[in-house]
C-alpha cells in the first residue's frame, strides 16, 4: 500500500521547525498547530482507529528479546520504561489515561517479532509499539505502517527508517551513525589540525558498515586519511594488520561486543594508537572498559545520556530523582546504561503523549505520531545541552554529543570537552 505523508507546505514546515527549536528543556513546544498536518491517517488500513481517542489505558506493546543473550539488556530497558510510566501514572497518567506496557518475547528473531506485532496490534489492541534491534524494525515496519500504529523510539539505527515519506509511522531512538561520525570527525579535526592517518576496524554487520560509511563520508574533504580497514571477525587478526598500518587513530566501527575485544586485541599485539574512538553503543564502563585495565585508558567515546554512576552527575537533580524513582519502582540495575535508556525513552513518550492529549484532536494514535514528528525536547536524563529533535524535514533525533575519555585509574569516564551540536546542519 502506498503510504502518503502530507508534509506541510514549505512555509508551514519552516514555521514548525522554527517553533520547535524555540524550546530548551522540559516539555516540547506544545503548539497544536505545529503538530497538525504533518502526517495523515487517510491511507491507514483503518483510518477511524488511527484517529479514535484513547481513553482509560494507553498500551505500549514491546516485541523484544526477553530470552537469550540480550535478555538482560532488554530487561533493563523495559524496567527503566516501566519505572518512568509508574511515576507518570502516580501523577494521574496522561489526563487520566493510564500507561501500560505489554511485552512479548521474540528471542531476537525478526520472524517472531513480526508475529508478535501482529498479535499486539490485532489481539492486544496496543496504541504504540516499541522494539529492540535493527532486524526487528526491518521485520515489523511495513505492518505497523500499514496499520498506522506508531513505532516510537525503536532501539535501532537503520537509515531507511529515517525516511519520513516511506515510513511515516516509524521513529528510531539510537543516534544515526552518520551524525555520530560527523561529530567524531569534527573532534578529530580539532585534535589533529595537520591531519592524521586513521585505521578502521569494521564489524561485518549493517551496524558496523553504517559506522564505517559514516566516518568515510564525514572524513571526505578533510586531511584525515584512512590508511587501513579490517573486518572484526577475529579482533586479534584485525589488530595485527591495523597495527602494521602505523595509523595514529583507530576507529572502532563495531557493535557492543567488539569494544572490549578490540581493546584487548590491540593491547596484546603491543599497539597503542594515539587515539582510539569507540562507538557510542559501547557506553558501559564496568563491563566494556574496566576489564581491560590500562589498555583502555584514554579511549574516547561520545555520550548523550547522564551516567548515574559517574561522579560528574552526583549532585544532578534529575539523576537523583531518577535513582530514587527507579529504585522505588523495582528496577534492578538503575546505574546500567540500558535502564537509563529505557527511562529516557519513556520520558520522550510521556512528552509526546502529553502534547498529543493537549492537541485539538485529543489523545489518538495519529496525534501521538504528529507529536513524535515535531518533538524538540530534552529529557532530564540527557546531558544538558542535548535534545531529541524531530521535524517534518529530519528524523535523526539526537544531533549532539558530549565527548568523554575513559580513565582507567579512576575506572570512570571523564569529560573531554563541551557538547558538540551539529543540529544546524540538519535543519
Amino acid at each position, binding site marked *: 500500500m502506498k503510504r502518503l505523508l502530507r508534509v506541510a507546505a514549505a512555509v508551514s514546515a519552516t514555521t514548525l521547525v522554527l517553533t520547535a527549536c524555540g524550546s530548551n528543556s522540559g516539555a516540547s513546544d506544545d503548539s497544536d498547530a505545529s503538530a497538525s498536518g504533518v502526517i495523515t491517517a487517510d491511507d491507514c488500513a483503518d483510518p477511524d482507529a488511527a484517529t479514535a481517542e484513547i481513553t482509560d489505558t494507553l498500551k505500549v506493546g514491546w516485541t523484544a528479546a526477553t530470552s537469550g*543473550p540480550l535478555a538482560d539488556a532488554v530487561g533493563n530497558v523495559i524496567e527503566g520504561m516501566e519505572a518512568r510510566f509508574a511515576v507518570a501514572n502516580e501523577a494521574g497518567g496522561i489526563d487520566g489515561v493510564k500507561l501500560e506496557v505489554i511485552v512479548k518475547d521474540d528471542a531476537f528473531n525478526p520472524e517472531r517479532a513480526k508475529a508478535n506485532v501482529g498479535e499486539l496490534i490485532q489481539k492486544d489492541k496496543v496504541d504504540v509499539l516499541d522494539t529492540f534491534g535493527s532486524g526487528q524494525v526491518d521485520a515489523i515496519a511495513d505492518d505497523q505502517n500499514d496499520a498506522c500504529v506508531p513505532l516510537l523510539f525503536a532501539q535501532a539505527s537503520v537509515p531507511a527508517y529515517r525516511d519520513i515519506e516511506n515510513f511515516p509511522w516509524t521513529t528510531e531512538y539510537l543516534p544515526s551513525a552518520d551524525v555520530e561520525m560527523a561529530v567524531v570527525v569534527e573532534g578529530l579535526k580539532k585534535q589533529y589540525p595537520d591531519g592524521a592517518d586513521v585505521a578502521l576496524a*569494521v564489524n*561485518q554487520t549493517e551496524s558496523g558498515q553504517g559506522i564505517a560509511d559514516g566516518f568515510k563520508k564525514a572524513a571526505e574533504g578533510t586531511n584525515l586519511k584512512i590508511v587501513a580497514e579490517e573486518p572484526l*571477525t577475529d579482533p586479534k*587478526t584485525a589488530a*595485527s594488520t591495523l597495527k602494521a598500518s602505523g595509523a595514529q587513530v583507530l576507529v572502532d566501527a563495531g557493535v557492543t561486543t567488539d569494544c572490549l575485544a578490540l581493546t584487548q586485541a590491540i593491547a*596484546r599485539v603491543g599497539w597503542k594508537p594515539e587515539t582510539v574512538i569507540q562507538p557510542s553503543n559501547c557506553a558501559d564502563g564496568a563491563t566494556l572498559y574496566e576489564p581491560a*585495565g590500562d589498555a583502555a585508558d584514554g579511549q574516547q567515546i561520545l555520550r548523550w545520556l547522564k551516567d548515574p554512576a559517574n561522579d560528574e552527575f552526583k549532585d544532578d537533580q534529575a539523576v537523583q530523582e531518577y535513582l530514587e524513582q527507579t529504585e522505588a519502582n523495582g528496577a534492578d540495575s538503575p546505574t546500567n546504561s540500558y535502564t537509563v535508556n529505557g527511562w529516557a525513552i519513556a520520558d520522550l513518550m510521556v512528552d509526546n503523549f502529553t502534547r498529543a492529549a493537549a492537541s485539538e484532536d485529543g489523545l489518538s494514535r495519529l496525534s501521538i505520531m504528529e507529536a513524535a514528528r515535531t518533538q524538540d525536547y530534552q529529557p532530564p536524563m540527557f546531558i544538558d545541552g542535548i535534545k531529541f529533535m524531530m521535524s517534518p524535514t529530519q528524523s535523526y533525533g539526537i544531533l549532539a554529543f558530549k565527548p568523554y575519555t575513559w580513565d582507567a585509574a579512576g575506572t570512570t569516564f571523564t569529560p573531554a570537552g563541551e557538547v558538540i551540536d551539529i543540529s544546524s546542519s540538519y535543519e
Partner: protein
Amino acid sequence: MELFLERLITGLTNGSIYALLALALVVVFRGTGTLNFAQGELALFTTFFAWWLTTESIPVWIAIIASLIAGFVLGALIERLLIRPVQRRNDMAVLIVALGLFTGLNSLAGLIWGSETKIMPSPFPNGIDDFVSVGGARLYFDALGVVGALVALMIVLTLLFRYTRVGLHMRAVADNAESATLAGVRTSRILAIGWGLSGAIGALAGVLVTPLSPQQLGLTSMFHVFIAASAAALFGGLDSLTGAVVGGITIGVLEAMLTGYVSFIGGSLQQTSALFIIVAILFLRPNGLFGTKRLVRV
C-alpha cells in the same frame, strides 16, 4: 615477518582452542559412536559454574577442578538419564536429544547466571606484559598455557585409550557394543564414563578458552568454537585424537591467514572458507585424514 608471526601465533592459539573441544567430541565418539551436538553448551555451562565459584572468592584453580568434576557428573547423568533411554530406539533420537540439550543448557545458563558478559579469570598469567617475544611477535603465557594443556590432555587420552582397561572397553563398545557386552564389558558403565569424560574435557576447554575469547564469557561464547571444533573432529575422522588436534590447528591457522592475507575473502567469508577446505578434504577422504576405515562384514 613480524606480522606473519603474529598471525601464525593467533592461528595456533585459536587452533589449540578448537582442538581442545574437538578432543571432547572424539572421546564421546570413540566411547559411544555418537557426535555430541551439546558439547559446546555443556562446556559453556560448566564454565559459567567455574566463573560463579570465582565470584564466591574460590581460587581459580579450585574452581576449574570443581568444574571438571561437575562436567564429568553432568556428562554421565546426561548419558544415563537422557541418551540411554532413546539410544535403544535409534541414533536419530540421540541427535535430537543432543540438539535439545544444546538450547536447553544455553537457556539454563542464561536463567541462572544472566546474559551479560562475564570475565572468567585466567589460571595463567595474562597481563599485558606476560609474554615472550618471538621474532617481534608476542607469545602470551595464557596462550602457551592452552597449548600446554592440549599437549598434556593428548598424552593422558592416548595413555587412557591404549594402555588402560577402561580405554580398551571404550574402544570395544564404540566398535560393537553387542559384542563387547557378550565379552563381559559393562557397556552401560563404559558409556556413562565416555560421556562423563567428554564433559570434563569440555569443561577444561571452556575455562581455558573463555579468558582468551574476544567475547569473553557470554551465552554465545562457545558457538563458533563448537562449529570449528566439529569441523576439526570431522577433519581428523572423528575417532582420531591426533586428527582432532591436527584438524583444530589447521582450521585456526587457515582462518588467521585467510583473514590476514586474502583480503577479498575478508571477515564475512573467513569461517566459511575454512570449512570449505575441510569439506574438500572430506570429499577426497570420507573418513578424514586420520580416521579409521570402517569394515562391514557381508
